[in-house]
């Protein structure tokens, strides 16, 4: 591929990863935090598939299938937890979780 090597993909994924991390750390809305986590998982996936293309080696693609599945499962549980908390406390603001202190 003319001029675009593995490094470009790695950089792209690093940027996406950083954006996801910023979302997780900075935003106060739990649902948005969960969405940002998805970005981070996607960043790793880009790496895996890109390496799989450039090496070439199938493992990366297989791994990314697992990753996508795991990420989906993870988000399901996370949303379940959000709903349970919301039902009890009517708040989805990260800062408002303050029953546990210390």
């Amino acid at each position: 591929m003319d001029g675009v090597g593995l490094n470009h993909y790695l950089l792209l994924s690093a940027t996406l990863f950083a954006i996801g991390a910023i979302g997780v750390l900075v935003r106060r809305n739990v649902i948005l935090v969960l969405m940002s986590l998805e970005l981070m998982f996607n960043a790793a996936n880009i790496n895996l598939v890109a390496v799989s293309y450039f090496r070439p080696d199938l493992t990366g693609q297989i791994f990314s299938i697992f990753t996508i599945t795991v990420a989906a499962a993870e988000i399901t549980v996370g949303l379940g937890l959000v709903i349970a908390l919301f039902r009890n406390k009517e708040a989805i603001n990260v800062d408002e979780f303050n029953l546990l202190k210390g």
Partner: protein
Amino acid sequence: MGSLPVTVEDLWAIAPELIVTAAASIVLLWGAFDAPRKRPQQFAWFTLASIVAALVTVLRQTPTDQTYFSGLLGMDAFSMFFSVLFLISAGFAVAASIRFLDDHGAHHPEYYFFLLTALLGMMFMARAVDFVSLFVGLELQALSVYVLVGYLKNDPKSNEAGLKYFILGAMSSAIFLYAISLFYALTGTTNLAAIAQAIVAGELETSKLTTAALVLMASALGFKIAAVPFHVWAPDAYSGGPTTVSLFITVASKAAAFAVLIRIFIVALEPLQESWVLLLAALAVLTMFVGNIAALTQENLKRMLAYSSIAHAGNVLIGVVAAATTDGDARSFAIAASLFYLFAYTFMNIGAWATVILLRRNGLAGENLEDFAGLASRSYPAFFCMLVFLLSLGGIPPMAGFLGKWYVFAAAINSGWTWLAVVGAINAAISIFYYLRIVVVMVVQDPAEDATLVRSAPLTLTLVAALVMTVAVGIWASPFLDWAASASQLLP
């Protein structure tokens, strides 16, 4: 291709895991069809029985150098050590849970399902010799534990703990995965041993990208073992969730994370050890100091034990650091020290948490320090058990905890990390301070009027077994030392 994907040897190798999986499925289906759910205890007994069956199976297997499932799983003494440790912890957790869940009105078969799947995930974590199987096992464990921490879904504290744990846990998983992808980019493989070879072959030790991947990997694993400064989730998760779950995860999840950490750092990243040893040593020092000092000021007992659990991870890290800088016998010695420490820690920590489960005031589970007030006059046996567990956690001989401390300090000095051993020793002295605080409350203060003990036969059994093991591992140590020493042989 064309041949069967799975051989008989493969299946026998994962026989314990198959038993656990089967048990989890049965619990789930049984729970679904047993609509009225009148006697939830039956699920507990069934779970316990299957855990025992899996334990027997593990003990019947013999460790080999082979790998199974196309090189994804190993069956070395190291992984079997951890399997046994997980199974024992899970058994204790089930026994301690029965009355607890009844009292909380949350005795459902799902609890045992999640416990078993968490157990399954841990067993795969300890055995995986490839990042693919490792990651999948880790996530299975993590997901099950998130649900378990948030299990008391009508209790906002449990919800909150579950969600906090989830957010930071998922983030650390993402970092972990990203680090894996970078190593994959560097070496073109996900097999741990092959990564080490590729690093040497490609002379990647000094590569900046390697450093980046290494730092990400270390912080992700730091999250998983709750090392400072990646520990912020731990006090919340351990103190907010159901106490029985804390009992389980402070021991088993932590041990599983250590199994992964040791395998990754000692096997895959061994060629890079110059870059990470100091990092890990710094983590160990921070973890011990912050864990112990934070524990000093806690009024909530569960939080105190949570911080103490963080501090103990620092001690295990000393052993890992010592293992990294040596090879041959000295390395085996240091790995064995870490393993023995984890093993000793299992029983005393389970015991301490089980005593917390025993307490109740105003119909609520014991959590604050005052709930322990006057325990010595309320129940002498309970007091005695707690005393032994606390002294053992503090490293007073002749209990197991002392031998564990002795072992890691010896490993550190043996590998030339004397200053790390000194830091560990100072921390042992600091930790005694808050353990004694609990003792003082138990002996000196007058009991609250409405304080009761919620005894149940399985819980008593848990306490007695933990007590016996805490003392036995300290005094009759030979077989356990042998076992830890043999388990220090990792697959190359």
